């Protein structure tokens, strides 16, 4: 009868829009970051010069430049889409960086260009946070205890080392990225980049000591692709 093609088209349109409106879609790139070789042994941090922080630990915390886990997994690796996708507007939520126990939490903070960065001092001592960018604007600010959070933003993508001018062992990284498709590996070394529309992407993994590596991945629909990154560890 005459109605059938119209009904079928109507249903098809409904189905398509239902899928489109149903929420996240697109492909996913997942994987793990591991290392091979012998990584440098992390040493405990000597905080004796700052007793107000030292007393917060029963055993001294370890340095975090290379944090490894089970099965040779590597933490604090930023995995992100470096090519193949347009830039995203910054989200309205702030990225928070906390100074607590005379350490930076998290050790590596990934956020986007022009996203608000909020820095909190949760210690009894004054800190002076000094990010050391090469292309962004350099600044450093003291934050006495009990003062309001420092609010800043960066307008260019860059991996920025961060240090505390007062406590030499405090080091961290700001990973300022262009789009919202990024992850930072935690314990276990795994990452997952979701909601990738069909296309060809370059996925880059960056570690503060071991450099960066890239791989190309093509997404055609909603499939999940798995890749691995293996970094060469250095004993010193």
């Amino acid at each position: 009868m005459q109605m059938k093609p119209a009904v079928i088209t109507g249903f098809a349109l409904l189905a398509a829009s239902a899928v489109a409106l149903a929420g996240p879609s697109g492909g996913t790139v997942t994987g793990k970051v591991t290392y091979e070789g012998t990584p440098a042994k992390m040493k405990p941090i000597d905080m004796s010069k700052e007793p107000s922080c030292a007393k917060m630990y029963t055993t001294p915390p370890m340095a975090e430049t290379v944090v490894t886990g089970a099965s040779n997994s590597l933490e604090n690796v930023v995995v992100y889409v470096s090519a193949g996708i347009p830039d995203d507007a910054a989200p309205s939520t702030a990225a928070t960086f906390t100074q607590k126990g005379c350490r930076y939490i998290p050790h590596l903070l990934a956020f986007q260009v022009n996203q608000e960065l909020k820095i909190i001092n949760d210690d009894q001592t004054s800190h002076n946070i000094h990010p050391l960018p090469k292309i962004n604007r350099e600044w450093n600010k003291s934050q006495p205890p009990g003062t309001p959070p420092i609010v800043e933003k960066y307008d260019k993508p860059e991996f920025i080392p961060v240090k505390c001018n007062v406590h030499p062992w405090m080091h961290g990284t700001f990973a300022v990225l262009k789009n919202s498709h990024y992850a930072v590996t935690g314990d276990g070394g795994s990452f997952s980049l979701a909601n990738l529309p069909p296309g060809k992407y370059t996925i880059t993994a960056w570690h503060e000591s071991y450099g960066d590596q890239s791989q190309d991945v093509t997404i055609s629909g909603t499939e999940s692709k798995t890749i691995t990154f293996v970094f060469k560890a250095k004993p010193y």
Partner: protein
Amino acid sequence: MHETSVEPVHVHAPPQGFWRKHVFSLDHKVIGKQYYALALVAVFTGMFLSWLMRIHMVWPDAKIHGLELLSKNGAPGGVMTPEYYLSLLTMHGTLMVFFVLTNAPFAAFGNYFLPIQIGAEDMAFPRFNMMSFWTTFLAWFVLMLAFVIPDGPPIAGWTEYTPLSAVGRDAGPGMQWGASLWGISIAIFCIASLLGALNFIATTLDLRAKGMTLMRMPLCTWAWFITSCIALLAFAVLLPACILLILDRHAGTSFFIPGGLVASDRLQPHSGGSPLLWQHLFWFFGHPEVYIAILPSMGIVSHILINSMRKPLLSAKVVIYSMMSIGFLSYMVWGHHMFVSGMNPLSSLTFSFPTLTITIPATILTLIWLGSLYGARIQLTSASLFAIGFISMFVSGGISGFFLAQPSLDIYLHGTYFVVGHFHMVMGVASLFGVFAGTYFWFPKMTGRYMNETIGKLHFWITFIGTYLIFMPMHYLGLIGNVRRYQSFVDDYMSPYLWLHKDMTVAALITGAAQFLFLYNVIYSRFKGAPAPENPWNCTSLEWSIPSPPPWNNFGDRHPIVYHDPYQYGVKGSQGDFVMQDSPEQIIASGD
């Protein structure tokens, strides 16, 4: 009564018009008042900074409401950051040492009274004189700019040791443009001081009236003269030092920066320089500078003391020679600021001996002041109270110097509050007492009006007692090893002594508030003070022989002739128990 010689010599034309009369004046008196006004602004600014510092030291986490308006970065939410404390400390020291203690006792009073006291119409180089004030003003303006730039003033102290002050922004906040502004400001200040010193020296040597031999000059004139000789050599060394510092900061040179330094995670692109070179150059200036700060006050105090006790000092000549020896020895002692600096330890011993030797002329002066009071008829006015208070303060401050002059003791006391107490007592208090004394004493001459004596005496008592309460405890804190230039005291050994810092802060706030009594007195009396005669204190020196305030050319169309030294007191004079310098009358002893 006042005899004159023939042809008056005009140094410049009478001033016409508002700008020439009050702004770009060639008249040494206007220039003296301009220096004084600048010093007043600087001293109240410096005092305000010290209040902020002292409040922060004892309550480091306190919100000082409004401070965030002065500096958004320096005091987020009104809480002073550690670097802003150091900025305030640096500006406090720089303002006080240069713009107050060099300006007020020396440039202000010296400019106003030296030409008159020697019987001259003006300084030898009136145009240089005007330039020297406006150059000083420019230096002050450049320095104050450091407060308004985003990164704030420098944080390396008024001594700006290298390489901290030389590498630029990697040294910390304020060390980019703040430190450059400091270097430029002080270099400009050096030029101004050199012009001023040249003027004083030429004037004193060439423009003395007939009969005014060098030995007949008042003791304050001698002090200004000796001070300008010291200043000529001292500022001549600071100027190139500042230029070298600016070159290191902006031209890539390495006078003061060795190689291999890593700051802010960056290898500094310099090599071959010596941080100790800056210290030598700076202190070669810096030590004579503190004598530049105290000698004029010694002269002013001597002059006022003689007048108020109606009796000359035991020997003016000895005082003159003592001041000269202090000036001479002041050039041999600069290394005592560097005993533990890493310079050759044998040099430290070598510097120690002239430092100890300076005690001798300083003691001679003190003993002569004290000894002269014996058998005098002391009249206590605001001026003489401060002059006598100077003696007490100079003794206290000078004696702590005796400890620091010995390298073995300096091992323990260097860099502690013992040093801070010492230099505040001699410079911050004693030298300033000379300025206060001079103000109360010469105000009637400069304005034709008295300052209010009741307020003046109240100002003295609060200041005298208050400054002892602030600065004497610093010596005790030094003895237990309280380190200086700390924004707060977090070390374990300091906790039993924080109460003393609180007491000192309270004393500082009260004593500082009392200075507003002085400011009020100056301003109010300028317009509403009781009229004063030409010679209200029955003083002998030439400034008291001319109207109050003096005409533009001081002596009118006459050129005075001098017959006596300025210490003719306790004699049977035609005007009382004194004889003025330009009076031809014979001196008749009073017979007792």
